[in-house]
């Protein structure tokens, strides 16, 4: 295996891989875990990547999944405490200390909620809205048609809008005033 191959396949998307993982987990240790898991997965799936229509898309998809797996695992570990000890999240709790923090919390909630979507939808909307991939490439990465990719993204958006109506209304209000 020549070093040049790594440089050709992995290096061009190193930054995107790092950004994708970081923006989903937002914790240095979790990011490290997720990134390591993603690289291990890339190694295990190198045969699949080689034959894939969109290898870069597939690698990013692996990163997205690794990051959400870490989030899910962490959520599971904390749920026991959350069920009994912690106050209800967001809508029932008092406002955050500052507007900026509140916005940040909202973003984190949305990102975490993506992890609860069906896997194809979570992958599709992340590839679309975060990585800015065209639908054709998303379809290649997911192994489905462009039309199906559009459907996954649309359904993910709809579900997120349903889950966070207050954010959407807030966004509309801010944008129109």
């Amino acid at each position, binding site marked *: *295996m020549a*070093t040049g*191959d790594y440089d*050709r396949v*992995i290096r061009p998307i*190193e930054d995107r891989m*790092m950004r994708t993982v*970081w*923006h989903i987990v937002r914790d*240095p*240790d979790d990011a490290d875990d997720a*990134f*390591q898991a993603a690289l291990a*997965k*890339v*190694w295990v*799936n*190198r045969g*699949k*990547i080689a034959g*894939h*229509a*969109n*290898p870069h898309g*597939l690698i990013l*998809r*692996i990163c997205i*999944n690794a990051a959400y*797996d870490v989030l899910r*695992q962490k959520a*599971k*570990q904390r*749920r*026991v*405490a959350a*069920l*009994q*000890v*912690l*106050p209800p999240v967001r809508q029932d709790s008092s406002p955050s200390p500052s507007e900026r923090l509140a916005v940040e919390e909202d973003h984190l909630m949305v990102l975490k909620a993506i992890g609860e*979507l069906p*896997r194809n939808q979570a*992958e599709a*909307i992340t590839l679309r*809205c*975060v990585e800015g991939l065209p639908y054709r490439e998303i379809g290649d990465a*997911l*192994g489905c048609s462009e039309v199906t990719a559009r459907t996954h993204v649309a359904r993910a*958006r*709809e*579900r997120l*809008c*349903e*889950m966070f109506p207050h*954010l*959407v209304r807030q*966004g*509309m209000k801010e*944008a*129109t005033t």
Partner: protein
Amino acid sequence: MNTSEKPEADMDAILGHAMDKPVPVEVRERMHRRLADFRERFEAEPAPAGFWTRLSAIPPRAKAVVFAATAAGLAVAAGIAALMIFTARPAYALGQTLQALKQVGFMHVVRHSADGTFADERWIEIGANGRQVRYRQDTHSTLINFFAVQDEKTVLAHYKDKNTVVLYTPAQQTVEWIGDLGELFNDFQNEGNVVIEPNVQFRGHRAHLVRWLKLNEEAYIDPDTKLPLSIMGYDVSYEAPPAGTFDIVIPKGALVVDKRPGAPPVEEPQWMKDQEAAPAKFDEARAALAAGDYEKGERLCAETVKLWPELTWAWYWLGYAQSKLAKYDQAIGDYTKVIEVFREVCPTAAPPHYAYLARGLAYRAKGMEERAKPDLAVALPMMIDVLRHPEGAQLFNMADDPLFGKQQHHMPTPEESKRRMYDLLRLATGQAPTDATASDEQRLVFWENWWKVHAAEYGVVTR
């Protein structure tokens, strides 16, 4: 049109904004180190010739659905379930779930791998009595590569890595996910075994969350159909399987070991003999540990894991013996093995809190507090929860008594479990209520408040 007039556009903007922050330098440096290691691996362990060079030339191929495998995770869980002792409380959702399950003909149980393919797929035909009639499992991971089909007459178990098929009758051996699911739910209606959180969100839909305390596992129930949508991280649906799903077909070229009555005798491969010998050795090891003979327990556990490397409890007790012998480095390795096997075999299941606790204490014994805390951070919330739900102490109790589950052996009462947990919490944190006469409720409040205040020291952010 202003994009914000469409809620979907707002959501895109929120997502875009959420992702526009730079990766911190510290994180970036760590990731670069990972990439450097990764690159070295490429250089040290070459891929097949022409592997990467094919990348740009190969046309799109159809989505490959890989049916994958893992027997042990849920087998472990089901085995633990078999050890349970149930005591009594009615629960609203589960009674209806039991009835609903009796109406379904088939269950399709799936766990996906990170790349979206099936890592574990099972089909179960359920009879009118709620019990399994036919079954199919296809599981693969780096540890387990297993396929099985069971019909009314035959059980075929295909150990793919060993290219060996073993045939049994159902009377000799059964393969199952959760053998008697309806009855299991029925049992969980008993007092203290479950906590139900109604009307939570599950993948964007309303669902009831059912926590099974003794296994520390969860199921999400569809409020309309009352059927489980997800059990222990597995997706569950109820469609009929494709034709031939339960056909018994022996793979070409596989070694066949027919253990059915009347079949001609055949020499078993050594790995089968080893696995059959492992439980007896493990029993001997547990007896030695219970008697305080840690050297003997260590030796026998080490022999057991050689025979059956996926037996997580053998790894755990090996670590226990080595901790007792102050061989903390080895013990940490053994506890890590428990955690890794769990993660590999059943990544959607709850982590083995008892192993994290044991490893955290072993790190602490070595003076490695910075390594101890992340492990204790996994275990402590569960340990504190046990004070409220003592039935959740099951796995901690198993990890505390080498003879747990043996016939005639004393099973801790909920009261004893709580007392034991007070000791473990003091051991893990060095803390305890100052008032020795504090009631259980006061102790519970003490520990819940303590965790709220100190979670951040353990690297856990609570809201």
